[in-house]
């Protein structure tokens, strides 16, 4: 077996709003965690081709492969063209409205794969090799006759059903079939934690579920009120973000994978299957900006619920139900993606101090309520607690938004977000939406933070804002000073800062390293930062054409399906880090919204392209 893993960008993602699977370009499901994003894996070949487990379906022999999502859906089609014919593999996890689910039996989780021969004839090869608990358990698969094949593993049962006859081998199940043009073979893997499990039949029901899923995704995509540039890419980002949202709670996780490396062969491999408060402000702005009010509301409700137990202190990250993520552990038995060790589950960053989270939460709440809506008592209490906490702690060093695991520092971005906390609270107070705050105290701290940033984060010698107070190093997140309204994007200081960042942190148009540590270590460029630059330019930091150019250049680093990882290798353009990454897709949406607003202002809205 070839032990070289596919490139990260060669994966696609499918999901059901509770869990997600990564499907390789060659038709192999190499990552699936059930029942939720942060559960242990069923397939983890992504992290170890030999022991991780996979489920591949592909034609025998060489094939030319193309793939796409059905328009405005998360239903994946992979087309294999071989010497003898052409087959289309459709992968999806069934989704539909809760109302429709109540009208029929619906498995707790299901992944459906369907092969249709479009032309000629195809010899199919299927290899179903699940390895539970991150490859540690080789499950016993029992033949349940007409009910399919079962894996009974204590508290849950997996059922695999197939139109192709399987034989059991030492690794799992395998099957072969020769299909002619027009013939279809379907496969279903389902999961249940309670009995009686729903064992879905194949045949017409697969077509029915496929149609329901297509309709549901398209209906959701149609709700977007976006008529700006690059409509398809923006909606793809929204759909990717929707795949990262956990429907029962409204949480949005950072990415559905763990330990995809930020440098291939490196050790910066983290578990991103949790929800970061850091993403809150960008998330709410993106969802509201696109018109997804219900999703934004669900996310804010999750935010209120998740933070309830730890307030006034906020954790950096929470699990989908607002609990603390598990302790970070190293899975030493896994080889890691292309040998990138260690493989980690859980995330130690949960114990870091990141003062910027307060600003993110307050900014998210401010977006949510707008300028007229009343704040309920609980929201007001949370906001007051955030303000009081920031007044007491803003001058402390912290770990910063990049979560470096070294000494705490006085990061400029953390100061900025403390300023944002107080700035937004004072605005809400002035508009009469928030009462009971110590306005004088807030205002005093607000002034002190502003003064400190202006005096100590600005480096006269460099003519730039720097990563930390009295520092010499640059950080792309200095562009956020304009995005959060601390400085005008067109101000002399921001213009100079942008010039320095582009010169020292920009390896290529559309790409920026996050900071000089990354640039010096030849790490990947941080995909989000390219979109921050486009956003900055669109907000007045440059001309409209400059903004459009940077946005287009940054978009070009998406994979063939429009998906982004966390980072981009500036030399090979390969995706790096966990995939797909919500933060990057938020960047796409927010930059597009700023670009649209700029085009509107200048009367140059081009419409969808």
């Amino acid at each position, binding site marked *: 077996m070839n032990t070289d893993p596919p490139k990260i960008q060669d994966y696609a993602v499918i999901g059901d709003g509770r869990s997600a699977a990564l499907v390789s370009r060659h038709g192999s499901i190499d990552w699936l965690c059930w029942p939720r994003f942060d559960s242990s894996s069923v397939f983890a070949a992504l992290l170890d081709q030999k022991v991780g487990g996979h489920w591949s379906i592909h034609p025998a022999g060489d094939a030319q492969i193309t793939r796409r999502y059905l328009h405005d859906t998360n239903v994946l089609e992979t087309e294999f063209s071989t010497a003898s014919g052409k087959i289309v593999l459709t992968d999806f996890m069934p989704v539909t409205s809760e109302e429709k689910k109540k009208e029929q039996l619906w498995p707790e989780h299901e992944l459906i794969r369907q092969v249709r021969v479009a032309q000629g004839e195809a010899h199919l090869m299927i290899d179903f090799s699940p390895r539970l608990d991150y490859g540690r358990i080789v499950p016993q698969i029992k033949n349940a*006759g007409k009910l399919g094949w079962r894996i009974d593993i204590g*508290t849950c049962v997996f059922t695999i059903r197939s139109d192709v006859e399987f034989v059991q081998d030492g690794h799992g199940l395998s099957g072969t079939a020769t299909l002619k043009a027009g013939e279809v073979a379907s496969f279903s893997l389902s999961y249940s934690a309670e009995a009686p499990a729903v*064992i879905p039949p194949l045949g017409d029901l697969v077509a029915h579920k496929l149609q329901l899923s297509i309709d549901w995704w398209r209906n959701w995509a149609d709700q977007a009120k976006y008529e700006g540039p690059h409509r398809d890419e923006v909606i793809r980002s929204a759909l990717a973000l929707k795949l990262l949202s956990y429907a029962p709670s409204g949480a949005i996780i950072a990415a559905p994978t763990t330990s995809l490396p930020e440098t291939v062969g490196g050790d910066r491999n983290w578990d991103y299957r949790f929800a970061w408060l850091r993403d809150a402000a960008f998330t709410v702005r993106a969802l509201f900006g696109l018109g997804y009010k219900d999703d934004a509301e669900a996310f804010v409700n999750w935010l209120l619920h998740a933070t309830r137990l730890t307030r006034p202190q906020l954790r950096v990250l929470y699990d989908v139900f607002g609990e603390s993520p598990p302790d970070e552990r190293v899975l030493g038995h896994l080889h890691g993606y292309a040998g990138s060790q260690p493989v980690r589950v859980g995330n130690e960053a949960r114990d870091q101090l990141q003062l910027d989270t307060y600003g993110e939460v307050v900014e998210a709440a401010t977006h949510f309520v707008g300028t007229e809506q009343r704040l309920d008592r609980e929201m007001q209490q949370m906001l007051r607690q955030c303000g009081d906490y920031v007044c007491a702690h803003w001058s402390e060093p912290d770990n910063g938004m990049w979560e470096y695991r070294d000494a705490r520092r006085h990061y400029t971005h953390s100061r900025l977000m403390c300023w944002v906390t107080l700035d937004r609270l004072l605005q809400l107070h002035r508009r009469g939406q928030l009462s009971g705050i110590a306005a004088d105290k807030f205002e005093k701290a607000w002034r002190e933070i502003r003064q400190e940033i202006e005096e100590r984060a600005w480096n006269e010698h460099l003519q730039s804002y720097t990563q930390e107070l009295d520092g010499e190093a640059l950080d792309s997140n200095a562009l956020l000073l304009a995005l959060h309204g601390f400085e005008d994007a067109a101000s002399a200081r921001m213009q100079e800062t942008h010039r320095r960042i582009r010169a020292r942190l920009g390896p290529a148009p559309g790409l920026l390293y996050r900071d000089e540590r990354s640039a010096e270590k030849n790490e990947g460029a941080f995909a989000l930062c390219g979109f921050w630059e486009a956003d900055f330019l669109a907000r007045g930091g440059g001309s409209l054409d400059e903004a459009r150019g940077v946005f287009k250049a940054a978009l070009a680093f998406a994979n063939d399906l429009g998906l982004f990882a966390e980072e981009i290798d500036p030399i090979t353009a390969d995706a790096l880090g966990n995939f797909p990454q919500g933060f990057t897709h938020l960047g796409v949406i927010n930059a597009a919204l700023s670009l649209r607003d700029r085009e509107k202002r200048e009367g140059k809205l081009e419409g969808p392209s």
Partner: protein
Amino acid sequence: MNFSSWLLWSVVSTVVLTSVLAGSQGIGMTRMNVPYLLGTIFTPNRDRAKFIGIILHFVNGALFSLIYVAAFQAVGKATWWFGTLIGLVQAFFVLAVGLPALPALHPRIANEQYGPTVVRQLEPPGFFGLHYGIRTPISVIVAHVIFGAILGGFYSIR
């Protein structure tokens, strides 16, 4: 028959029986969710099925407890060990006869010989409910033994 004593202790014992079965699902002894199993006779809606199933389970508890009470009255004695014995018999009956017969009675349970259909998609329990987890019989026996022990121990013969 002591009506008020039967009413009180049949409710109490059914509450405990239901809780033990739910608890054994919670701790991974079995996947069997009895309210869901019963409720899906009437609806495919997962949430509504569980609600209907709980009501149905309580009605079952009351009806079955009548058999226990009849036995206590017949021998003129109600003790915890006698109740336990009846509970044991009932548990074996449920496991060996009741659950395997379900596919014939339940409109949504699939048939092992023909496989699932659009209407019948629910996993059949199999002999002794083993399809719902290998320790399902233990939880069923423990729950029914406790059910019988409570009835036998607290029901007062009039």
